[in-house]
Each structure stands twice: as C-alpha cells, then as structure tokens.
C-alpha cells in the first residue's frame, strides 16, 4: 500500500496468485536451477596496479593532466576529457569531504543488516572537484553524518595490507 494513499485498495484483478516457498519446494512450479561457476582475474594494468601498490604503502595516488589541469583519482593512464596520456603522478592526502552518502539497511539479498552500513562518496583532498572514492564510513552514528563532513581514512595495519581498496577499512570523522 502506497504511503499517503491509505484509502486506496488494490483492485481484485491485480492480486495474482500468491506463491509460497512450500509451493516451489513441492514442485507446483516447474523450474530448473543452475549455479554456474564462472570466474575471472582482471589484469589491473598500469594505472590501477600503481594505485593498488600505493594503497599497500598506505598512500592514495592520483594522476595529473597538464592540459586540463585536473588531478584525478582513481588514476588512469589517459585523461578521458583531453584524450591524451597523463603527465604526472601525485600523492594525495588520506583525508576528504563527504560528497554524498546513504545509510543502507539491507544486504544484496534484501535481508536486514545487523548494523546499517554508511556508504559515501568522498572527495579526496588535493584532487579536482568531483574526484573521489566511494567507500564506507564508520566510528560515526548515522544521524551525525552530513554532506560536507571532513573525514579521514582508517587503514589496515601494514602487515594486513594487500594492495586492495579494502586496505582502507573505512573513513571516520576527522574531528571528534
């Protein structure tokens, strides 16, 4: 029932035939199940390899295009706006600003999460506007997050880091 439309009921013809788990298990519905085993190992390539190696060292690396002047993260070997190779690599700070966020309550199978996950896009300090990393926030209550909040990366320990985006465990408020 739609919010704010409490006096409206579904017309009878739209009800359909409800199906239960039991109907499916007892074979009342004809179906074939398959669970394909398909695996990939994507070559990270020049730009992302260097980025991942940087994460392993606890650094966020970006690239610079001297034509448009943008500092881009995650890095790439070419500037997609100027269509030319990038000019320089730069180390960026591991701090940034929450550009947008969502407090997410259910998992991909639509089951409730034990604790909500705060997903955010973080504009990295030192990179050009709208250049950032999508990651998660923690050590903050959902009701305290706001757009424009300054945050800092919380890294795994040096021994735990493996050259993956998850080498950053999460981001937390810079103050407090």
């Amino acid at each position: 029932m739609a919010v704010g439309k409490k006096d409206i009921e579904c017309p009878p013809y739209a009800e359909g035939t409800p199906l239960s788990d039991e109907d499916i298990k007892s074979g009342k519905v004809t179906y074939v199940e398959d669970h394909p085993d398909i695996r990939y190992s994507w070559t990270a390539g020049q730009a992302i390899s260097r980025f991942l190696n940087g994460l392993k060292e606890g650094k966020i690396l970006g690239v610079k295009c001297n034509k448009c002047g943008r500092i881009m993260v995650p890095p790439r070997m070419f500037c997609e706006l100027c269509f030319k190779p990038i000019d320089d690599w730069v180390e960026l700070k591991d701090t940034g600003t929450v550009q947008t966020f969502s407090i997410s309550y259910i998992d991909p199978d639509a089951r409730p999460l034990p604790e909500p996950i705060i997903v955010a896009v973080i504009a990295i300090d030192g990179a050009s506007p709208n250049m950032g990393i999508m990651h998660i926030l923690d050590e903050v209550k959902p009701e305290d997050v706001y757009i424009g909040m300054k945050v800092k990366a919380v890294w795994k320990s040096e021994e735990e880091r493996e050259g993956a985006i998850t080498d950053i465990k999460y981001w937390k408020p810079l103050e407090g």
Partner: protein
Amino acid sequence: MVAVVGVGYSGFDANTPDLSWKEIMYEAALRAYTDAGINPRRDVDSFVTCAEDIYEGFAIFDEFVPDQLGAVVKPTCTVCADFLYGIATAYMQIRSGLADIVAVEAHSKASDIQTFGNVVKFAMDPIWLRNVGNAHPYYLAALEMFQYMGERCLSEEDVARVVVKNKNNALLNASAPYAANVTLDDVMASPKLFDPMKKMEIAPLADGCVVFVLASEEVAKELTDTPVWVKGVGWWSETYGYDTASFSAMYAYKAAKMAYKMAGITNPVKEVDFAEVDDRFAFKEMQHIEALQLAGKFEVARLMAEGYFDRDGALPVNVSGGNLGVGNLLEATGGQKALEVVLQLRGEAGKRQLSDVKVGVAQAWRYLPANSGAVAVFGV
C-alpha cells in the same frame, strides 16, 4: 557510400599481463584516430562498441567504454555481437545521416577469463542443454564438424590442411602469437581432444583490440586520398537450438548474400579477390568458404589441397593466419579479419601483401554455440 578512414589495433597476444582491457582499448583507439588524422573529442559523432557482458565479467558493460575511446559525454552504444555487427551499425548511422564520423571498437581480454569452458556453457539453454554431461563444450564444434565431414565426404587430412595453411601464413604476421611452421604430419599427430577434432584444429584464446573510424563519402574524401569503401554488410541468425540447427553455416551464406547484394557482387568467385573467414575451428574455414560462395559445395577440400586458398593461390583465404594463427579474439574476431582486409586493400600488409587486390571479404561467426554471423565486403 561509407569509407574506412582509420584503423588501429593493439595486440594480438596470447596474454597481456601488463595492460588492463581499458588500456588496450586506449592504445587501439589512439592509433585509429591518429591513422584517420582526427581528434575524437572534436570530430567523432558516434561511438559503437561490440561486447558481451559474460566475456568481460561486468554487467551493463557499455557503461565502462566511453573514457578510453574519447567518448565521454558523446553518443555511445554497445552492440552485443561481433565487430562486424558494429560496422553494420556504424554504416546505418552514417547512411541515415545521423553521423558523419563513427568509431567502431571490439576487444578481447580473454586472458582475464579463468573458466572459459563454463562461459561457453553459459550460452547453452539452461533447461535441456547446459547440464548434459560434463565435457568441455568444444565438443559442440566437434558434433557439427563430424556431421559436416560426412555430408561433404571430407577426410581428417582435408580439415588438417587448414591448420597447416593458416599457421604458416601467420609466420609473416608479427601480430599472430600462434604462428608455427607446422606440417600435415604435425597436425595429424595432434591429440584428438574431441574426436574427430584435434587439439591443433582449435584456435586458442588471444587478447587484443581493434578500432575503425568510418566516415561518410564526403568527409572521407576530405580526410584521405586512399579510402577503403564498405561496399556491403550483412548479418543473419539461424536458430538457437543446437539440436535443430542446419550445421551448414546458413548464417554465413545468408549474411554473405545480403552483403554481396549491397555490393553488387553477383559472382563471388570471380569478383572477390581474397577473404578472411572465421576459422576458430579448422573445419569452420571450409564451411565458411563454401557459405561465402567462394567455392562449390564439394570443391573446398580439393581446392585447399591444390593450394587455391594459399597466399599465392587464386583466392587467398586467411592470409593473416586467421584465428588459428592469431587466436580466438572473441567479439574482436571480425575486427581482426576486417583489419587484415583493409591493410591488404591499402597495400600496407608488409611481407604478406597480396598483389592487385581490389575487393576483400571479412566474415565472423558468433562462436559456440551460436548459429549467427556477419559479413562485410570492402573495396577500393
């Protein structure tokens, strides 16, 4: 009229551990734009890429293509098929007046796929084909091969000769990782992995990318003195059912008829100078030569043995080395074939350059377990 005004490629290699698929696309695209003398950010009106999500390991793969093609905030679409379908799409966009310059791209990063057999199986009907037995699905090609050999009275040697020709042709192609100076004895001694199909009759996977720049006649004449014309395009699908298909490459026959009609070709044997056809399984080359009407139904094996389709023969087929020499490039297969045709027509094929060629045909199949394909006729 629509012309090819620029070509570029990256690869072809058995593996590309140093570059991501985005980086091989950038390399091929940059070469194609440089060849055409254009700036994609300013000059290209539309971008067409050809990709299959399951080969890439990404859903909605078209979302991932603009950056490395110079297509950000430009009209871009992905055709879920071989490169030659992309050529047909670009052809229609130009002929309809929607665009003057169109870039077409296809690539293979097959080395990123860990379970290729299961990827092929994923294309089989899940209800009554996919889970019958646990053999590697290359047997699908062997089933078709065995029936075709029976219907055309072919010996195992007849099929093996395709491998000998193509792998040796590939020795003159620096971009053919599976080139080899094999003999008929070598191929005959190759293990039968899917009896009657031998291991060497199966094109191994390869990585690479092909980008073409197509332009309207008016724009092409401004850009280049040596345009290669897209004279005809065709595509055709039979049926998805592996148990009901013709097993005689009807898709290639019909696609070629469509392309020949557009190109004004009435007698392909006389009017086509050379061809690059899909040979991802050796017998497929014979089937496709026949379907493209480049030889009579029962003549292919005899002509092959006589050297008619050799580099110095009357009608060279797969001078580049074909898929058996270059590798299975997935959706870029037709791209490699079209690339070879264009290089030959421009006189830029190096040591394997054919003399006096004016019309060439490129053909690609949609691979196992499909009964679909496309054909493009190019000419100068």
